[in-house]
């Protein structure tokens, strides 16, 4: 019941929002992108070119919109520092859900990744980290076996190499097309985080729009330090489920990053343009040491 309608709610929101970088626009690259980005939060418009130059942040209200894993990686990692882990891992069909495997394969081509999370090793302003990036364009970044396994392996690898983990979360929750196996990934990842934790290593989560359901109820909430992006939707239950349960309207900022911070569940809300600096400062203060020479990356 907790996750009931969640996918639908998130998907509806997602469709309604009509992010220029998603769906149809992406599947037909020869068609020019929409000229304007219309913000789902303040409904303000911005020229797409300007919006993309501004790291896909709404200039009117500072809503940090959704990124593909590649965009996120480019904005976060030092140039050419990224080495992917487990890039060839792919989903199978545990409950024989009709059409599931084909859907996963098709999305893989469209999103240029085999699954909804990409993990690897990279440096951020010279600090070596294990990074994980969830991509909501891939089945709302729901968590099935592959997402769970990749994240688990990333934490085990980081514990073994004494590295911190930086994880960008985004998800509609557990991937119900994989049945109970998807639910078990919540326990599996939490166990791997416990090991990394016992090894004394730092785990930073960055909650991005939207982080919900089983991901909120597992690794997203377990960071030593929890960062969120401005105006991100973060919660356990879907907005509509709650509305249906309590039969009343919810305030607009309900389940926003700001609401979560006020409720005590987020340490800091950080603008995209300050994230690299913020992360590197935190790493420095946790006694991690820079790797050799700084290679650059995008201009701060």
């Amino acid at each position, binding site marked *: *019941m*907790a*996750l*009931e*309608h*969640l*996918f*639908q709610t998130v998907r509806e929101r997602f469709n309604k929002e009509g992010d220029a970088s998603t769906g149809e626009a992406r599947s037909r690259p020869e068609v020019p992108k929409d000229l304007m980005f219309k913000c789902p939060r303040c409904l303000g418009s911005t020229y797409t070119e300007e919006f993309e130059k501004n790291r896909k942040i709404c200039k009117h209200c500072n809503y940090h919109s959704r990124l593909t894993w590649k965009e996120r990686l480019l904005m976060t990692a030092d140039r050419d520092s990224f080495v992917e882990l487990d*890039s*060839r*891992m*792919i*989903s*199978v069909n*545990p*409950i*024989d*859900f009709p059409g599931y495997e084909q859907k996963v394969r098709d999305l893989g081509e469209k999103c240029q990744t*085999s699954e909804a999370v990409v993990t690897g090793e990279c440096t951020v302003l010279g600090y070596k980290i294990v990074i994980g990036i969830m991509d909501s364009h891939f089945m709302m970044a729901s968590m099935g*076996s*592959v997402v*769970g*396994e990749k994240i688990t392996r990333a934490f085990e690898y980081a514990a073994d190499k004494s590295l911190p983990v930086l994880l960008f979360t985004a998800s509609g929750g*557990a991937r*119900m*097309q*994989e*049945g*109970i*196996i*998807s*639910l*078990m990934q*919540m*326990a*599996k990842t*939490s*166990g791997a985080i*416990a090991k990394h934790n*016992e090894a004394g290593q730092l785990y930073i989560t960055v909650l991005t729009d939207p982080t919900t*359901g*089983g991901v*909120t*109820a*597992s*690794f*997203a*909430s*377990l960071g030593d330090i929890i960062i969120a992006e401005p105006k991100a939707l973060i*919660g*356990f*239950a*879907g907005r509509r*489920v709650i509305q249906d*349960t*309590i039969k009343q309207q919810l305030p607009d900022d*309900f*389940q926003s990053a700001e609401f979560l911070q006020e*409720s005590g*569940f987020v340490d800091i809300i950080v603008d995209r343009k300050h994230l690299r600096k913020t992360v590197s400062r935190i790493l420095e203060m946790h006694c991690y040491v820079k790797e050799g020479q700084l290679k650059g990356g995008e201009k701060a």
Partner: protein
Amino acid sequence: MTNQLTASERLMLIRDKNRPTVNDYIPLMFNRFMEFCGDRCYGDDKAILGGIATFPRLGNMPVTIIAQVKGRNIDENKRTNFAMPHPEGYRKALRLAKQAEKFSRPVICLVDTPGAFCGIEAEERGQGEAIARNLMAFMTLKTPVISIVLGEGGSGGALALAVCDELMMLENALYSVISPRGFASILWKDPTRESEAAELMKITAEDLLEFGVAERVIAEADGGAQNDARFTASNISDALEDALRKHCKTDTAKLLEARYEKFRKIGMFDFMEEESL
């Protein structure tokens, strides 16, 4: 003897208003149950009942009990919120589990919930964080944990009490990532296809054994637990006695390693060929 009922028939059975609840089983299985209340942060959630008791099958060994409480009538259900816990329920569970760890008592979790509650206050008080914290903490809890699904094992709200050394299912109990109705309404946009979803989802005790999610299936009375709670309780006690004998004498480091491995190996995936990259 194998259970011939389909998943949707079992769904009907576990919704039977006469199906025994933890309030029936606890007195039949344990002695001297003493309820302990509160999470020490916010309040006391009646959807989760916690406390200590002794287990007569093992020389009245003290155990900690953490149980989700379905009501037997509308008044009880109002009090226990239809067994849908708030964050403070999960935090109470964790507090009692930590207490059990300190005093080397095994923890017995009785799971029976449609799911964690969805509401404004539940979000404000961090429903997601509370569940996540339990998953991580139970994974490293230095005392045996046995979880038994009595009826409904609903999603993350059930999992928060099911990170354990051994998961047992009553033979008609179901455990799923989402209710069959939710599954049908989201994936097929048609909640009336509930029974079809129940068959497809692989949520019965036998399915869970096969996936390595559950370790043991406990027989109910003929026709379902409601026909003889005493008989069913005695079967649960048999299984619990056997599991506790095994896990209580296991060295703690080995116990935790096995618990980690139990969950670590759950997952089904493949690897793409090099050229398809």
